[in-house]
């Protein structure tokens, strides 16, 4: 880091010599080859738009948030993006609280140039009301541990956070179409940002000995090296930014070699980021399916799909169907946002469809329709109750209570199932698996702690 700051850890002369001598034989002190990158791990938080990146010992977290603001005068129909870096003193003894140091500002500007000038994030799609309201995207990067090469790690964190960030959808309303209504995530699905390409930063370190160059320097190597160069390149081979801020002189041929090396590295890192984001998105879809059901649970409780949706999805099923669910869910928000009743009507219609298809599998339990909103008109399926009682094998009084429990729990489960069980393909399967699902449902009501609500109910009762 900056050797002029207080508390800098300085390398001893012996250590410096050792690093340089080892490099002369193409060896680095952590065992890597000169052109080898460290292992990159990307994790995500629960919220959209938060990423946690570890590059060897370097640990950076990125957060993305959005806010409606007035646009700049010169660009009335573009959103804004700003990057803030926090060099926490716990990361490195030379970082101090308060105003960012030179290296913090340089890091922020390198990442900013890579994202802004190369137009990686589409700014015009962030415009809500030209000249009045646009979305301002704010990227916060927190350095938690400085193991060297903060720029690359912070860049990956920023990209990962941007890719998983979802901004609320807003629509124009009001008398003259000038009022902006921001829809909360429960009403309308938040939208992702439009990211055209991913600019990846690759940092090279140059040493005073001729033509020695390393990729992804560690902290000790940074203290020894004479100069550094950060190349921001995307997977299609376009150079988005280069930053070589002085330091030891390097011939032009060497620089071109670095540029080509960076393009290669960028491809693998882009793939890494995309895979991690994919995994997170899939997981979020799963969570969203259940969350969507609880959001509508209040309405659905009176819908009495208890019998209709006996088939309980196993986790695998959910996975398989998550993709088709996603399509449905995409359609769903349109319906659900119209009005509760309409949404409900659609639930009932589809549950109708399913219950009709199930008719052959089981005794027709109910025929759907608004008349069956009262859960007590048709009661609970007696077969179901018996099965649940038998499976529980508890003492009678408790069984009674637990049957109530399980009934309610089953109701809750059914409710969430009702949301899941929209595609007709599932309905066809359901008839076959009714029997096993009775028991499987029973098992799950006690042991499956899927829904926090269920858990809470159980706790209050028992």
């Amino acid at each position, binding site marked *: 880091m900056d050797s002029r700051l*207080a508390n800098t850890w300085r390398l001893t002369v012996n250590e410096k010599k050792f690093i340089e001598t080892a490099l002369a034989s193409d060896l680095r002190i952590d065992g890597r080859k000169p052109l080898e990158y460290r292992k990159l791990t990307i994790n995500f938080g629960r919220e959209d738009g938060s990423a946690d990146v570890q590059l060897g010992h370097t640990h950076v977290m990125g957060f993305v948030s959005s806010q409606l603001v007035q646009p700049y005068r010169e660009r009335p129909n573009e959103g804004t993006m700003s990057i803030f870096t926090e060099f926490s003193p716990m990361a490195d003894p030379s970082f101090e609280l308060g105003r960012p140091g*030179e290296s913090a500002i340089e890091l922020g500007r390198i990442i900013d140039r890579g994202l802004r000038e190369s137009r990686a994030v589409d700014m015009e799609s962030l415009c809500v009301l030209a000249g009045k309201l646009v979305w301002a995207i704010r990227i916060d990067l927190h350095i938690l541990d400085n193991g060297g090469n903060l720029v690359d790690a912070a860049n990956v964190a920023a990209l990962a956070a941007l890719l998983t960030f979802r901004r609320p959808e807003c629509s124009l309303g009001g008398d003259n179409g000038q009022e902006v209504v921001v829809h909360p995530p429960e009403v309308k699905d938040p939208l992702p940002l439009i990211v055209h390409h991913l600019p990846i930063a690759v940092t090279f370190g140059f040493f005073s000995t001729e033509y020695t160059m390393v990729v992804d320097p560690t902290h000790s190597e940074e203290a020894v090296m*004479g100069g550094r160069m950060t190349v921001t390149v995307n997977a299609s081979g*376009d150079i988005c930014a*280069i930053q070589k*801020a*002085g330091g030891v002189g*390097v011939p*032009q041929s060497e620089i071109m070699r670095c540029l080509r090396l960076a393009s290669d590295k960028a491809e693998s890192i882009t793939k890494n980021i995309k895979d991690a984001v994919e995994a997170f998105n899939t997981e979020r879809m799963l969570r969203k399916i259940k969350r969507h059901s609880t959001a509508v649970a209040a309405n659905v409780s009176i819908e009495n799909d208890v019998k209709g949706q006996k088939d309980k999805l196993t986790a695998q099923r959910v996975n398989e169907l998550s993709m088709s669910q996603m399509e449905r869910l995409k359609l769903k928000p349109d319906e659900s946002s119209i009005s509760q009743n309409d949404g409900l009507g659609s639930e009932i219609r589809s549950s109708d469809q399913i219950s009709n298809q199930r008719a052959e599998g089981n005794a027709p339990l109910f025929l759907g329709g608004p008349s069956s909103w009262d859960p007590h008109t048709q009661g609970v399926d007696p077969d179901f109750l018996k099965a649940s009682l038998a499976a529980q094998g508890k003492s009678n009084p408790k069984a009674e209570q637990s049957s109530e429990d399980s009934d309610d729990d089953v109701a809750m489960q059914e409710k969430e199932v009702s949301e899941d069980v929209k595609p007709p393909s599932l309905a066809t399967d359901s008839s076959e698996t009714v029997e096993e699902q009775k028991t499987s449902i029973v098992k799950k009501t006690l042991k499956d702690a899927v829904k926090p609500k269920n858990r809470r109910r159980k706790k209050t009762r028992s």
Partner: protein
Amino acid sequence: MEFVNPEGLRLDGRRPMEMRQLRAEIGAVARADGSAVFEMGNTKVIAAVYGPREVQNKSQLSNDQALVRCEYTMANFSTGDRKRKPKGDRRSTEISLVIRQTMEACILTHLMPRSQIDIYVQVLQADGGTRSACINAATLALADAGIPMRDLVTSCSAGYLNSTPLLDLNYLEDSAGGPDVTVGFLPKLDKVTLLQMDAKLPVDIVENVMQLAIEGCKAIATYIREVLLENTKQLEYRRGL
């Protein structure tokens, strides 16, 4: 907007490979150990060097080499609209860092341990390429101060608009949103010290534009050498040699 018209002329009448008019003056600040004014077209920059002198902040003292400090400021009146904060904003801090590291690489700091060299650069008129003008002015000022250097550092910018590489962008061309490559070059050693680029470009075009900027740096180096020789002749004359 057309930056290169069909005849091949740019907005200010230059050809794509043509640099703006250069003008340099040594010894503008009498109080400083070394100083220079450097003009590239309408961009005018003044640099002052103090050093080697005693280190002011003892915690930064280095036993084996000189400490180099640099401060880049833009005068309030330098740009079209009056600037509110001449220094301390992020861009100025970054450019200060960049200039410092560029000059540090070419000053023979190990010859002056336990001392400090201060470079102050102020932009008087900004019309694109201020970074380059500052580095050129700092080189002249350091030479005027008699500080030993490995080589002259010269800097020039180049861009790519309307599918043509352009040398030495002015403010209009710079703010067009196209790529802007600034190169800091050591002509005798044939090495690149500073390289900054923004906006997207494929790799081969980067190579072309960088090559063009390096040619520009070599031309500036020739001019700077002339100016220094002329200055030395004047000094000899005044000393009666």
